[in-house]
């Protein structure tokens, strides 16, 4: 017996198998996205505290709107493709299906551009809830190490990834032997140390028995202190550092270094200032970092918004009221130190002080700095996309102790971005999956069409139903993510 109703419908249900299958699958998908939408509602309602206001209208509406049109267009095209198959017009089907796939690609490209913008854009929250938004110019913990405390229980030596380029991890063991530290050395040391420990435990037990007292054998391997042959310069990624203090950095892998903390501040290029959750805006921490001109701008902006909304008789939007966008002006104290894209782990120490890496040096006078690198154009190294020549953003240096939270505008930034990236990401995966299936129908099912055109029409119908669903999800996503 063959499986019936693969192409033709069963008379009493009026359905062929795959059509039931896809509707059931879509029911399950409704529950999946239903769960996510409920999560959105739950998070948004539950947020309810002033420290974490739900961000509204964070996304540029235009690309989202274009994407909506693109998806609706592709949904229409997939129906045309299906209808062409029903009318047994394969050439037209091919044209429409290519159109569907082009739309899918366009959607994904626009979405990637949006994602990229978010991933490169940072926000830093200070201890009084001041938020600076902009770009991180430097975010590491610079440290000069004289000693390294090795935890012999670990197999990894990740701590050495913080070592600045051009240095060898040369150390002296307590026995005075000079070694080049690597995992192989660590492994051989661990074997040795463990044997010694077992030996010590046995000796203690025997000694205790001989003396008739309770044995107190050593329980675990002791840390090994290695002394650097000459002081080593580290630039640690703070996310991999477990704890650190003035003279000690404990790394994620439990090894630690001792020495002197050189610099742990974060250098940040401030584009927007957000004081939405700051109670005393007049004395916000923000004003310790940027000059009075910017402070004036902020309160001018607030007064203007208040006046505007009063004139229109509406309540001011808290986001608009408390956020100053595109600040221009200077930091209170000019930042010095070598700065490179991506957090500056390279670069020999001792390079001269550099001006702020804003590209605006032609039109805007530079802040006073050490000036030793005068003449070296920073453009090449710091070229950032999309800055207008006349804008000059203050570059501020923030002590790490004042930082509450630092992240790019990725999923970790707040629960809004978390649910935004999760939902649009999952939706994007559905777009990719659907496009792959439709592309498969287009490219590899010609023979099926020649044998049984109805079967291919059925397949496209099923794929099209899924495609409509993906479109529908976006139609819900667009307003709740972009507009509300």
């Amino acid at each position, binding site marked *: 017996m063959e*499986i019936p*109703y693969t192409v033709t419908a069963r008379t009493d249900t009026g359905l062929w198998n795959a059509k039931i299958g896809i509707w059931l699958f879509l029911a399950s998908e409704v529950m*999946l996205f239903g769960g996510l939408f409920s999560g959105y509602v739950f*998070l948004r309602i539950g947020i309810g505290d002033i420290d974490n206001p739900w961000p509204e209208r964070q996304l540029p509406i235009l690309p989202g709107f274009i994407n909506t049109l693109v998806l609706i267009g592709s949904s229409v095209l997939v129906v045309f493709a299906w209808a062409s198959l029903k009318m047994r017009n394969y050439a037209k089907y091919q044209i429409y299906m290519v159109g569907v796939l082009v739309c899918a690609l366009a959607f994904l490209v626009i979405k990637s551009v949006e994602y990229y913008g978010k991933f490169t854009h940072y926000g830093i929250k200070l201890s009084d809830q001041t938020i600076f938004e902009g770009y991180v110019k430097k975010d590491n913990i610079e440290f000069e190490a004289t000693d390294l405390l090795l935890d012999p229980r670990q197999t990894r030596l*990740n701590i050495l990834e913080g070592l600045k380029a051009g240095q060898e991890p040369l150390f002296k063991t307590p026995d005075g032997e000079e070694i080049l530290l690597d995992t192989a050395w660590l492994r051989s040391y661990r074997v040795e140390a463990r044997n010694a420990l077992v030996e010590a435990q046995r000796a203690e037990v025997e000694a205790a028995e001989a003396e008739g007292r309770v044995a107190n054998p050593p329980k675990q391997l002791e840390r090994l202190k290695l002394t650097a042959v000459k002081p080593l310069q580290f630039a640690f990624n703070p996310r991999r550092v477990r704890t650190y203090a003035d003279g000690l950095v404990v790394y994620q892998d439990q090894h630690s270094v001792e020495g002197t903390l050189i610099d742990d501040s974060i250098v940040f290029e401030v584009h927007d200032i957000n004081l939405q959750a700051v109670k005393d805006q007049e004395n916000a921490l923000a004003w310790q970092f940027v000059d009075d001109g910017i402070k004036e701008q902020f309160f001018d902006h607030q007064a203007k918004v208040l006046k505007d909304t009063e004139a229109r008789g509406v309540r001011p939007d808290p986001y608009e009221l408390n956020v100053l966008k595109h600040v221009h002006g200077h930091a209170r104290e000019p930042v010095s130190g070598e700065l490179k894209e991506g957090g500056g782990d390279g670069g020999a120490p001792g390079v001269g002080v550099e001006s702020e890496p804003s590209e605006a040096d032609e039109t805007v006078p530079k802040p006073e700095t050490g000036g030793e690198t005068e003449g070296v154009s920073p453009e090449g190294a710091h070229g950032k996309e999309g800055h207008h020549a006349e804008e000059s953003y203050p570059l501020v240096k923030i002590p790490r102790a004042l930082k509450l939270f630092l992240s790019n505008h990725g*999923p970790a930034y707040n629960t809004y971005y*978390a649910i935004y990236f*999760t939902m649009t990401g999952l939706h994007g995966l559905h777009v990719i999956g659907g496009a792959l299936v439709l592309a498969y129908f287009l490219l590899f099912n010609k023979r*099926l069409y020649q044998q049984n055109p109805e079967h291919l029409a059925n397949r496209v119908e099923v794929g099209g139903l899924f495609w409509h669903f993906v479109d529908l999800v976006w139609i819900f996503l667009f307003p709740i993510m972009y507009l509300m």
Partner: protein
Amino acid sequence: MSATAAATDGDHTADHAHDDHHAISFWRQYIFSTDHKIIGIQYGFTSLVFLAIGFFLMMLMRWSIAFPGQPIPLIGGLFGETWAPGGAMSGDLYNMFGAMHGTIMIFLGVVPLAFGAFGNYVTPLQIGAPDMAFPRMNMASYWLYFLGGLMMFASFFVDSGAAKVGWTNYSPLATTADLGYASIFWTGQTLWLLAMVFLISSSLLGAVNFITTIINLRAKGLTWMRLPFFVWAMLVTGFLLLLAFPPLEVAAIMQLMDRLVGTSFFLPTGLYVGGEQVDIAGGGNPLLYQHLFWFLGHPEVYVLILPAIAIVGEIIPNNTRKPLWGYKSMVYAVMVLGFLSFIVWAHHMYMTGMGAGVSTFFQTTTVLISVPSVILITSLIISLWGGSIRFTMPMLWAVTFLPMFGIGGLTGLPLAFNEIDLYLHDTYYVIGHFHYVVAPGTLFAMFAGIYFWFPKMTGRYMGNVLGHLHFWPSLLAMNGLFMPMMIQGMAGFHRRAFDGGVAYEATTEKWMWLNHVMSWSAWILAIAQIPFVINVFRSIRHGKKCESDNPWKATTLDWQTPTPPPHGNFLKEPVVYRGPYEYSVPGAIDDFCPQNASDDELDWEGVANEKEGKSEATVAVS
């Protein structure tokens, strides 16, 4: 391309026809098979192995409870100094085994056995279909399950050990667990989530397949009210899996994001772990996880129990030689049950402080759901009334299911009430309650099913002597294991104490001795399974041969096929003339009327001209 693959392509043109006679390679026939019967058996074996693993974990835990701090005999040294110092189970190891016992038993053991194995093997046979509607998807479903299971099992061997925070995996504990390891990815907690994504995808494919098959591939004449109750239960179970699992997938995705990407879906502002503030944005809500989890969690309970009731519902009429009492009310009850199971989930969350109004709502729906459950069980009990019962091996298990499941169900009633639950929450009472539902409940029905359909799969009966050696000790040990839990629970024993309550000796002293009773019961229960394993493997070759294709003299279509059913199941397309349980039809010579036998094919008492009158009578019954 195999014959099945050709069949799914659907275009049966001449160039494909010869494929049907090709010899299929061993791999395609037994390993990557698309035949629902092979897949069913694959599910069966895999899930039984996982059940054994889960059971093994539990036996070790019971050692720690009965003899806290003492080295585990024989194998204590295998776990290493970190997990079992001196061979005695540490709290961490106990937590790991506890979490994995629950996960393995539910997601890798009972559900695949009940739904994957029995559903796959029996459903297409009972509806007279040649195979499932989507055979290749069926295969994908099994292999996704297998991969998920493998991943879950592999997580024991990573540095962090397997997941340790209970099968419910509550955030924020689950999110912040195992974060100290160099790679967050290779931790038990993360692997648990990834494995769950595999298992959820597997059950999604399975559910779509089952529902489509039942809707569209029913044999000619097999109307909805002629469907065996088993098929109805599978249909409802399919919908439960289809609709309840996606929210858990959402929870798993969100928790993965929390762990790997640093989001704070389930992490509140100002969360401290181990005395240090966690570097996250905050603003999330731990309660959201519980809602998403239990939205699956409660329907999952019915996924565990409906196939069991369904199997018992097949075996009881067959062995009482009487129609199932109240077939229609059972069908409606199972549908109502399926619907209600979606709106009771928060009775697992009374302790979270979600508010009195919400609690009241869920308390009400929970009490309501006992109505259809009681209809099902009552119908099965009344089915026994006045029957001349054959106590075959399957019937023994099936009849025992009724009181055992009854205890499980009735002990659940107090838990439905908010106030009582505040006291009983997280005590051994809860453990006793749901184990009565699932272990002597569902598992007994599973054993009944294995003994019942084994002759169809192999053409041989399973041995009676070994069967009794399996049954009686199991029955005693199950009760010895779970009944004392109720007593301990009411005395306030906390369910997660790895030392069995020694730490609270002042209050628990009186009932500590029960720990020994339960632990010994568990180990005896393990020994009682040995005859079963021997029986299965011995009977495949050496069991007593069945006299016919229909050894139990059953009415449903699964018994009207050759034994074992060939590829494509039926020799000719079955046509159904009557309802599923027409046993002892008045006037019929045989005491059973197979569904596919027309009145003309059956022998009737009296003369030929009475036939028409009789057939009207049988139509009325159906």
